[in-house]
């Protein structure tokens, strides 16, 4: 009598523990899921923006998480947020139809990297305002300037910053 009851209660405790685990969300696509709470550990997977993860354990600046698909690993805690992904629900309304509301929530969500370069309207405006070609090229240079991920990693490691900080 007593043994089945204890098993039942232990199973219940496990269920409760799982269901009350804190849920956080990945801020940016490409976030590393690592084998341990160290920036030097193996990268198990790269997580997509908005992925919900359950926090299992906390150690230093890393959280051990369980991601959808059963992936378990460690993430630098500042790459996670408690804010759930934005709800892009459309749902028409009369005022929206009258005024031509254009699902701006969806446009807001466009990935930063999906919109590149100085827009034609900005270039046209610049020429009308007497902004020189050199200045237009300066903004374009700024937009195309890239930092290689390995260079960033070396910079963080040497400075003991980010995932490498104590």
């Amino acid at each position: 009598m007593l043994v089945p009851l204890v098993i039942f209660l232990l199973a219940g405790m496990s269920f409760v523990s799982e269901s009350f685990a804190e849920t956080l969300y990945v801020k940016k696509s490409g976030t590393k899921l690592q084998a341990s709470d160290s920036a030097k550990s193996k990268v198990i997977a790269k997580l997509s923006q908005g992925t919900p993860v359950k926090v299992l354990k906390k150690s230093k600046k890393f959280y051990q998480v369980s991601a959808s698909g059963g992936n378990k690993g460690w993430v630098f805690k500042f790459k996670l947020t408690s804010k759930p992904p934005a709800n892009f629900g459309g749902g028409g309304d009369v005022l929206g139809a009258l005024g031509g509301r254009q699902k701006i929530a969806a446009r807001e969500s466009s990935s930063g990297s999906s919109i590149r370069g100085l827009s034609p309207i900005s270039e046209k405006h610049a020429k009308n305002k007497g902004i020189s070609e050199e200045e237009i090229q300066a903004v374009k240079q700024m937009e195309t300037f890239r930092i290689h991920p390995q260079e960033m990693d070396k910079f963080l490691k040497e400075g003991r910053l980010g995932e490498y900080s104590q």
Partner: protein
Amino acid sequence: MKKIILILALAFLSLVLAQSSYSFKLDDLLETLEKPKPKSQPSKQEAPKQEAPKEQPAQQGGGGLIGLGESLGVFDKKTSRILKKSVGAVQAFQPIGLEEEKAIGGSLALEVFHKFGGMYKNAALQTYVSLVGKSVAEVSDRPEIDYHFAVLNTDHPNAFATPGGYVFVSVGLLRMVQNEAQLAGVLGHEIAHITRKHALETLQRSKLLSGLNGLTMAAMNKDEGLFDQVIDEVSNVLFTRGLDKNLEHEADKFGTEYAYRMGYHPAGLNNFIQILGKSSSQGSSIFLSTHPGPQARLQTLGRFLPRYKAVGLYPILANRYRTTVKGQL
């Protein structure tokens, strides 16, 4: 036997309650420790966004039934505009989309180069500023957009941010900065203006857009005068009048927080404002002239910084700053 069952049931119940309160407290902790929320500004929902849905096709004539009426000749342009303004007065202003934000920010970036000395062409310096800036932006509340960094060829100590991710610091400012933590704090302040959309929200509240329910590429492409007016309005705010002082204090706090998250000593921005406040060139700095006075900023940061405990060993990276930057100026 009954006693044992009762004890186990009570233990189970207490565990459920304990778990529930644990979960609640963790959420609170994240809010208070990692997301400072200045009292002066309403908090915003900076939620991470799911993978980008495709852009909605631009609609002609502003879209909707009024736009349709205009294209079918039911309303003339004037009537259509009056109707849209009336509807806009009832509707809340829709957030400005990323494409529009980048168009506005790109035009303002051009103005920054035009008005403040042009680009300081030095690849090593641009790389270093970009490394510091991009690392700080990665732990901000809006890491999903691209951030672009450049150095301005002027001796005046200046720093700017324009919507869409454009950030500038001047040669004059880099000469005054003493270490990497201070630079991270300054860049964090500028990045915070972008993550918190300060310029865009100021634009939305301006008379220029009063009565409208949104600002779209379609509307700006159709009416070039509207785009010119938008750029003039934001340019005036950023480079002459300055943002609301509460937004500057907010940017100081968030900028400090972002630098701290990356692992820099959180006093970096505070220490740089002290240096700038004592400098004889402070009058020529937009970073000061369009901002609240150094004393007010230091007071606000002074009340904010004690939240960061046990940061004595957080690096300021003075040597790396000196060896990387000083030889390039």
